[in-house]
């Protein structure tokens, strides 16, 4: 149980030596290795953090790009739809215009056709009516009708308007030639006398007349003095009727109902 002081000193020295050796061979390398590993782990963690941040950034960028792409796509789609609509509308309008033009043309053609048809019908009807009327009147014309015509003519001479009467008198006075009296049939002596009497009353005592016949008058009588004519005949009536009912092309009926109505008439 004694303390060996040499051993104490030797052990103290041994211990100090051991401390130095252990520091050199154990603690320093181990701590350095641990530090190194910690640094590596820290660096790796930092790398991971950076990569994560980078990935996040890229993800954000990608998301933004995606959103942009979607937006762009939508814009393009909208534009395409709008363009299509416009084009469709344009085509529709063009088609409508074409159809309208065609329809107008057809309508016009139809109208023209109808008008020409109407005109033809009217002309033919008119011609038929005139020919029938003329034929009937020619058939009906006779001496007795002629006497009635003369009577009507004398009556008209009596009731001539003042200006007409004056014009005829002036024409006769300028020439002084006998008045040309035309009738469809030869007038009887009494009729000639009546006519002369009426002329005399109209023109004065010097009146003289030359009687001729003209079947073209159909039934009637006319006075001709120095180119001025006073007449009453069925042929005149027919001419004026023909003039009054002749249908000009420009006044062709437009509506179908009108066309029908004219066709019936």
């Amino acid at each position, binding site marked *: *149980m*004694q*303390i*060996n*002081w*040499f*051993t*104490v*000193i*030797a*052990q*103290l020295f*041994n*211990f*100090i*030596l*051991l*401390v*130095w*050796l*252990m*520091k050199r*061979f*154990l*603690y320093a*390398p*181990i*701590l*350095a*290795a*641990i530090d*190194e*590993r910690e640094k*590596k*782990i820290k660096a790796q963690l930092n790398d991971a953090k950076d990569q994560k941040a980078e990935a996040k950034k890229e993800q954000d960028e990608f998301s933004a790009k995606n959103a942009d792409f979607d937006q762009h796509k939508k814009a393009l789609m909208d534009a395409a739809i709008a363009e299509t609509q416009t084009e469709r509308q344009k085509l529709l309008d063009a088609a409508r215009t074409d159809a309208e033009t065609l329809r107008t043309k057809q309508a016009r053609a139809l109208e023209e056709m109808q008008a020409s048809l109407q005109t033809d019908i009217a002309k033919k009807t008119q011609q038929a009516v005139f020919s029938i009327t003329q034929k009937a009147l020619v058939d009906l014309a006779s001496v007795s009708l002629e006497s009635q015509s003369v009577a009507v003519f004398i009556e008209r001479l009596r009731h001539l308007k003042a200006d007409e009467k004056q014009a005829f008198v002036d024409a006769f006075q300028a020439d002084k030639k006998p008045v040309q009296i035309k009738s469809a049939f030869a007038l009887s002596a009494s009729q000639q006398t009546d006519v002369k009497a009426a002329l005399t009353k109209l023109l004065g005592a010097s009146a003289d007349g030359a009687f001729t016949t003209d079947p073209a008058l159909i039934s009637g009588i006319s006075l001709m003095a120095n180119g001025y004519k006073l007449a009453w005949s069925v042929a005149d009536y027919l001419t004026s009727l023909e003039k009054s009912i002749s249908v000009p092309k420009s006044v062709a009926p437009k509506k179908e109902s009108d066309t029908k109505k004219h066709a019936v008439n």
Partner: protein
Amino acid sequence: MHLSPDDVIFWQYGFITINLTLVTTWGLMVVMVVGSGLITRKLKTGLHISRWQCALEIIVTGINTQIEEVGLRQPQKYIGFIGTLFLFIAIANMCIVFPGYEPPTGSLSTTTALALGVFLAVPFFGVERGGVLTYLKSYLQPTFIMLPFNIISDITRTLALAVRLFGNIMSGGMIVGILLSISPLIFPVIMNVLGLLTGLVQAYIFSILATVYIAAVVSKPDKQT
């Protein structure tokens, strides 16, 4: 039967004595240094390391953590002293599992030497930390009346360190020896196992007390500022 390995003398020349304590200590030193050198020769800094390296790292970081928990802020500065203290005592005590082994810590000379090491280390670290004056002033704390008591405290605690370790280890060896003579079969084994535990606990107590003493000196300037 000898009480201390100091008594087994191999060679003596006057004051100089080569005894079993010194020889065992050298042997332990060689084993520790060579072992450490072999393991740390191929240290890896990657994530995959060898088992030995892992074991050493656990021991070193464990000691580091213990020092830090006691209150020393830079454990790597003190681990050389405190860690070696712990490892040496622990290995010396654990080797009792080998037959015929005499732990050097069972010698009062060795424990005195270790206690003297602590006795010298405390002012060394104290002076290194805050200078000579600051360290000497710590003996006058809290008042100058405490100066003799502080000095006595330093001496007695060194003595206590030496005797505590020596007593525990020597008594363990003695008990095994006595029990061997009484019942040579089962009890010595149990006592040996208990001796292993005692040895580890003593190593821990010795080193943690040394740490506390050092921390008491080193932490003072921090508290004052």
